[in-house]
């Protein structure tokens, strides 16, 4: 951050961001990141819980799947996504057959898919650890006091796992904001911040790309930092 700031002037930032459409990459990244987080929350939270409680069939297979997507180079994920959701795949054809003629390449949807694939493993691994940290005896106690499983999840499991979930989600946010490898393969358009940085660097050089790099850091970093601070405070309050 210091290096970045020392090489940037206020004027450079202003001139990079005041032209027509200059804020579009930022807005695209914010929108796709928000949708990505929503997708992770809805689909990956239950998966993480089931993995933590070991109630999924073939749990090692699921965990291996999560780890693979964590360990695979993002560029490779992008290439594989072409084979999964590209226009000539069953999923691609299904999307195209929909009333809105959706496509999972070079669209906002494609950007979200790429960001989900790049960030999901970070969220699942973190959320799984957060749920595993909640003692099953707490949930049993809540059930014996009369709560049905959903109510137990809402009143006990979720609040107790919240600090860890918050951290996992914020890390996923940072990953989604910075997603580049898979994005450049299946979602070159619309531009998010990482692709804007890359293109600006290619076309006009380092000095022009730096303001976008600064914006990316400003957008991506505060959430994880705040989540870590909140999580540490919450854990301290509970554990003394």
């Amino acid at each position, binding site marked *: 951050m210091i290096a970045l700031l020392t090489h940037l002037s206020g004027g450079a930032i202003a001139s990079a961001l005041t032209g027509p459409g200059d804020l579009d990459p930022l807005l695209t990244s914010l929108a796709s990141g928000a949708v990505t987080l929503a997708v992770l929350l809805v689909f990956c939270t239950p998966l993480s819980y089931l993995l933590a409680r070991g109630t999924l069939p073939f749990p090692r297979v699921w965990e291996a799947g999560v780890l693979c997507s964590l360990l695979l180079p993002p560029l490779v994920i992008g290439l594989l996504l072409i084979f999964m959701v590209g226009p000539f795949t069953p999923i691609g054809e299904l999307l195209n057959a929909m009333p809105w003629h959706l496509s999972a390449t070079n669209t906002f949807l494609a950007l979200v898919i790429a960001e989900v694939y790049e960030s999901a493993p970070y969220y699942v691994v973190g959320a799984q650890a957060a749920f595993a940290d909640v003692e099953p*005896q707490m949930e049993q106690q809540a059930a*014996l*006091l*009369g*709560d049905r499983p959903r109510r137990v999840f809402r009143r006990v499991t979720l609040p*107790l796992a919240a600090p860890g979930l918050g951290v996992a989600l914020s890390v996923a946010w940072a990953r989604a904001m910075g997603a580049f490898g898979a994005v450049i393969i299946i979602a070159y358009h619309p531009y998010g911040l990482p692709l804007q940085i890359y293109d600006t660097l290619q076309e006009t050089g380092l000095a022009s790309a730096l303001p976008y790099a600064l914006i990316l850091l400003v957008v991506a970093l505060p959430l994880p930092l705040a989540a870590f601070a909140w999580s540490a405070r919450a854990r301290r309050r509970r554990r003394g």
Partner: protein
Amino acid sequence: MLDADVEVDRREFTVRASLHVAPGERLALFGPSGAGKTTLLEVIAGLVRPRRGRVELGGRVLTSTASPACFVPPWRRRVGLLRQDPGIFPHLSVRDNLRYAPGGHRSRTELAQVADALGISGLLSAMPVRLSGGQAHRVALGRLLLAHCDALLLDEPYAGLDAQLRRSLTDLVAGLVDERSVPAVLVAHELAEAQAFADRLAILDRGCLLQVGAPHEVVLRPASRRAAELIGYLGFVPAAEHAGNVAGVHPERVVGGAHPGRGLVLAGTVVGCRPAGAGWEAVLATGTAEVTCRLPERPAQAGGRMVVTAVDPPWFRPDGAAVNPPAASAVPPGPASPEQVGT
């Protein structure tokens, strides 16, 4: 009435037990670690499904493997379980913990009364992290009381607490069980704790109930040698004239000197001696057996001779079953062995 007649498979053995606890009655399940005591409680609470059996509470069938099969989930059982870890929800204040049960918020007066009775009125706004071990147990107990459970299960709840606190909590729970007239089952692996709480004592070993009865009766008249060993009988002295029969000697049922009218008089050599509580514990070699005894006075030094009397000891056959003669003939007649002075 709580009735449980179940079989649960565990890795090393099958737990087979039949328990009947009347409203207001306190039963203590006593046995070594891993005997299946907690498993039994978990079956009653609905946390573990038995392979076979039936659990009934107040006329409601909670579990039945016989047709029509039935399994009431834990949240509908109205069975309270208090474990060693009281399970206070750390993200809720004491007040919110107390009124956690659905409907627990209905009566503020009742909450205040329970908090008052448990001595936690001043802690209602506190977060659990600020509570001591004893306070946390009181909060957990209050939470169960406010949930209006129909049965109370206590799984070694006071382990790790100091003796005075254990005693006060035991008295408190016993009083509340009486007052609410609910069946209560305590799992304990310390005999004193079980005796202090229970109206009846059940001994469980490797999944089998060895004996159920009044605590005093179980301790003084164990049904088998194994039960006696679990209760704390440390010496088994053979009677020469009764092939294979042995007398069980409990260290705390021994008095110094020869008192033939009170039990079995034993003479032997002191092989070890050490302070124990407010008295002394000595190991006495009497022929083929070693007997541990706790005495108020310091016994002879190691190597010295000592005579003690095992007060009214239970006798066991070679197969381990208890010999249950009338009190007058509790001790086998006939001449004593060389080290067994007389009765």
